[in-house]
C-alpha cells in the first residue's frame, strides 16, 4: 500500500515552500495530506484539510481567531485543531509519517501535533529554530529536527536543497523496515549515564541470559522522562536505575531534570525495581560561565566545554538520599537499593578526582534513616562499575521476583 505522509504547514505564509515539499514527497512515490494551520488567509494552492476546518476542530472559526489579534492564542487554537485532524487520520490508519515546516510559530504548531503521535511513527520538523535548544519542541518524543539554515522564505537554491533533503528523509524513514523488537522477551528498562555505563554493560548479558531484553536510557533529563513514560505505558516488566543524577536536576535546577515524578512510575505500576546511587557524587551543570555563582568555589571538574561537574557535598548527599527514599516509599512494587561503597561513578573511584568516600557514606546513612524497612538496602564493597556491583544488582533484582 502507498504510504501516506501528513504535511503540517501555515499556507498563509509558507504556501510556496509547502507545495514544493509536497511535490518532492510525491515524486518519491508517496501520498500526501496537507493540513493548513495558517490563520491569515488561504494560500494559492488548496489544502486537503483547509484552515477553516482546522479552526473549527480547534473550537473556533477563522474570523474569530483573526479578531483576537493575538497570534499566540490563535496558534494555540490552530495547533489544537491540527492535532485533532491528524489524530483522526491516525485512527483511520491513514498516516505513516508526518512532516512540518516553519519558523517559530510553524515549529510550535508542527511539533505540538507530532508530540501527540506514538513513538516509532516517523516525524520530521524542518525549522529555522532547529539549531538551538530543541527540547521545548521535541519534549521526549522521537522528532527529527532538520535545520533550515536559510529562512523558509521563498524558494531558492538553499531552501530547495533543504526541502528536498527533508522530503527524502521522511520518505526514507517511512519506507525503512520497521525493525521492532523481537516482541517475545520481556523488557527491562535501565537508566544510566556514561560515568556508570560499565555497570549496565556488565548487567546486560546477565539479564539476557535470564531471558530479558534490555533497553538503556541515558539519564540526561529527556532520557529519564522517556524511561518513565515507557514504564507508565507498561513496556517494561522491571527497572534497573543505575543513575539518580536527575533527582539533583529536579531539586537544584541543574540541566538534567526529568520531572518531579522521576523514580515513581515503577512504584506506581508495581513492577520490581533496583535503584543505585549512581552519579550522585556530582551535579552536572552547563558551561562554566552558566554555572550559578554559589558553586564557583566548589570542587569542580570540566567534563567537556559544555558540561561542568560539581562534586556533591554531605548536605546534598543527605537531600538526594531522603528525596529518593520518599519516592521509593510511595511505591507499591518490590524494590531494593544497592549501594556500592567504593564510588558512585567512574569519577569517585579510588584514585579519581572525585574520590571522597566519607561524603558518599552520608548517602547510605541518610537513606537508611528515611527508607521504609520493607525496602532492602544492600551495601556492596566495590565501585559501581565493577562486575561485582552489577552482579549484586542483578541478584537483588532476581530475588525481588521470587
Amino acid at each position, binding site marked *: 500500500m502507498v504510504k501516506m505522509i501528513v504535511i503540517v504547514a501555515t499556507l498563509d505564509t509558507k504556501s510556496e515552500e509547502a507545495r514544493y515539499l509536497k511535490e*518532492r514527497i510525491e515524486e518519491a512515490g508517496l501520498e500526501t495530506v496537507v493540513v493548513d494551520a495558517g490563520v491569515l488567509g488561504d494560500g494559492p494552492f488548496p489544502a486537503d484539510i483547509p484552515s477553516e476546518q482546522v479552526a473549527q476542530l480547534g473550537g473556533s472559526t477563522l474570523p474569530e481567531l483573526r479578531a483576537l489579534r493575538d*497570534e*499566540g492564542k490563535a496558534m494555540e487554537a490552530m495547533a489544537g485543531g491540527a492535532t485533532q485532524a491528524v489524530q483522526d487520520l491516525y485512527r483511520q490508519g491513514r498516516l505513516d509519517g508526518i512532516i512540518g515546516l516553519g519558523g517559530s*510559530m510553524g515549529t510550535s504548531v508542527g511539533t505540538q501535533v507530532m508530540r501527540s503521535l506514538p*513513538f516509532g511513527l516517523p516525524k520530521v520538523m524542518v525549522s*529555522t*529554530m*532547529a*539549531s*538551538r*535548544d*530543541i*527540547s521545548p519542541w521535541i519534549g521526549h518524543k*522521537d522528532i*527529527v*529536527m*532538520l*535545520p533550515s*539554515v*536559510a*529562512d523558509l*522564505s*521563498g524558494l*531558492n537554491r*538553499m*531552501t*530547495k*536543497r533543504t526541502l*528536498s*533533503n*527533508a522530503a*527524502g*528523509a*521522511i*520518505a*526514507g*524513514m*517511512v*519506507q*525503512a*523496515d*520497521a*525493525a*521492532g*523488537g523481537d*516482541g517475545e522477551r520481556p*523488557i527491562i528498562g535501565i537508566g544510566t549515564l*556514561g560515568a556508570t*555505563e560499565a555497570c549496565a554493560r556488565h548487567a*546486560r548479558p546477565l539479564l539476557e541470559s535470564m531471558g530479558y*531484553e*534490555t*533497553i538503556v536510557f*541515558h539519564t*540526561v*533529563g*529527556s*532520557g529519564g522522562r522517556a524511561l518513565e513514560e515507557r514504564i507508565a505505558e507498561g513496556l517494561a516488566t522491571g527497572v534497573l536505575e543505575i543513575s539518580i543524577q536527575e533527582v539533583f536536576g529536579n531539586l537544584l535546577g541543574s540541566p538534567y531534570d526529568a520531572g518531579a515524578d522521576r523514580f515513581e512510575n515503577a512504584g506506581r505500576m508495581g513492577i520490581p525495581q533496583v535503584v543505585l546511587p549512581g552519579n550522585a557524587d556530582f551535579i552536572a551543570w552547563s558551561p562554566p560561565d552558566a554555572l550559578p555563582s554559589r558553586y564557583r568555589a566548589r570542587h569542580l571538574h570540566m567534563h567537556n566545554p*559544555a*558540561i561542568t561537574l560539581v562534586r556533591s557535598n554531605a548536605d546534598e548527599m543527605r537531600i538526594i538520599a531522603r528525596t529518593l527514599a520518599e519516592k521509593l516509599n510511595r511505591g507499591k512494587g518490590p524494590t531494593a537499593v544497592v549501594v556500592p561503597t567504593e564510588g558512585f561513578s567512574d569519577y569517585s573511584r579510588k584514585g579519581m578526582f572525585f574520590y571522597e568516600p566519607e561524603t558518599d557514606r552520608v548517602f547510605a546513612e541518610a537513606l537508611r534513616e528515611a527508607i521504609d524497612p520493607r525496602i532492602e538496602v544492600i551495601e556492596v564493597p566495590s565501585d559501581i562499575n565493577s562486575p561485582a556491583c552489577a552482579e549484586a544488582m542483578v541478584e537483588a533484582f532476581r530475588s525481588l521476583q521470587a
Partner: protein
Amino acid sequence: MTKKILVLGTLDTKGAEIAFLKRSIELSGCRATVMDVGILGQPATQADITREDVARAAGQTLEQIRALPNRKRIIGAMIQGAIEKAKLLHGSSGFDGVVGIGGGTGMHICTAIMRSLPMGLPKLMVSSMASMDVSEFVGAKDITMMTSVADLASLNTVTRTVLAQAAGAICGMAGASVPSSEPRTAIAMTSFGITTQRADNVGRCLREMGHELVVFHTVGSGGMAMEELLDQGLFVGVLDLTTHEFIDQVAGGHYGGVGDERLETAGRKGIPQVVGPGGLDCVAIFAPEGVPAKFAGRRTYYHDFRVCVRSTAAELEVVARILADKLNEAAGPVKFLVPLRGWSSASRHCEPLFDPEADRAFVDALKGSLKPDIEIREIDAHIDDMEYAQAAVSHLHQMMTSSSR
C-alpha cells in the same frame, strides 16, 4: 548510481549498533563506509577507515594519541584526523551523505566532522543527547538531529527502530534530487520576525533583475550561517537590513554574541552591502517569569514566548560604534539605510516601542563614527514598508553594477 554514505561512530562502545546501521543502509540500497573515531577500547567490528588511519591523518599513531595528557587533547587529535580523512574522501571518491551515532562524546566528535563538510550535503546525527540545546553541535550548519530516545547501548525494540529510520532518512536525503532551474546569481538578506511580506517584495524586485533572494533569520545561527556562505562565495550582494543581534549583544538580549565575524565577511570579501538597523529598537528576551529587573520601567511588547524591550539611546550609541568599526574596514562598497518610522514590527508608529529620539541618537552616533565614504540614507518609511525595500534593492543594484564595471 548507488549512493554512498559515510558512517561515523566509536566501534568500541557502539560496534553492534554501527553494524546494524550499516546493514540497514545497505538494505535501503546505499553503500556504507564506516569510519571508526573511537580511541580507547577495542573495535567490536571492522571499520573501512580504521582508528589507526584516523590517527595517522592527524600525524600521530594511536598510541601517541592515547598517551596525550588529557581527554580534551585526545579527543581533539581524533577530531583533527577524522576531519582530514572525511575531507580527503569527499574530495576523491566522494559520498552523498554522512550519518553519525553516539552519546555525548560521540556527538561532539561526529558533529565536529560534519561541520567541516559543505552545506547541502545531507548530515544526520543520531544521539541520546540530540534533544536539548544543540547549538554547540549544529553551529551554523545544516546538521539534522535525531534523538535516539533510548540509549544506543544495545540493540532492542527502541534502538532498532531508531537506527532503521536513521538509515532510511540518510539514504532518502542522499537520494533526493533538486530539480534544476535556470541559474541566477544569489543575494542574501537578513530578516527578523514577521516580515514575510517584505521578503516577498524584495524577492520580486530582485527576480526582475535576474537575481534570487536567500533570507536568513537573525535569531541565533542565521546571521552566522550567512557569513559562512558569504565566505564560500555564494552571494554577489547583501541586504543586511536586520542587525538586531548587536543590540542583544550590548543590552543583554537573547540573540547576542553570535560570533565575531558577524557583519565582517561581506566587507572582507569586497561584496557590495546595504546595511540597516532592523530590530535594533528592541532587545529580545525569553521571559517566562516576567521581564528581568534590569529592564524595569522600559516599554515592552509581547511577541509570543519572547518579549521585546525598548532599547535606549545610550545602548544604541554603543551599537552604532560597533557597526561603524566593522563597516569602516570593508573593502567593498557599503551603504547604510535608516528608515525613520520604526525598525521592527514592534515599533510601527502606533505600536509601543516607537521612540524616534532614541533612534535619532543612533543615527547621530553612526554619522560621527562611519568614515565619510560610507553613505547614510534616511528613508521616511517603516522598515517593513515597500518603499524601504525598494530603496534597499535599488541602492544595492546601483553598487553592484558600478562595482562590476
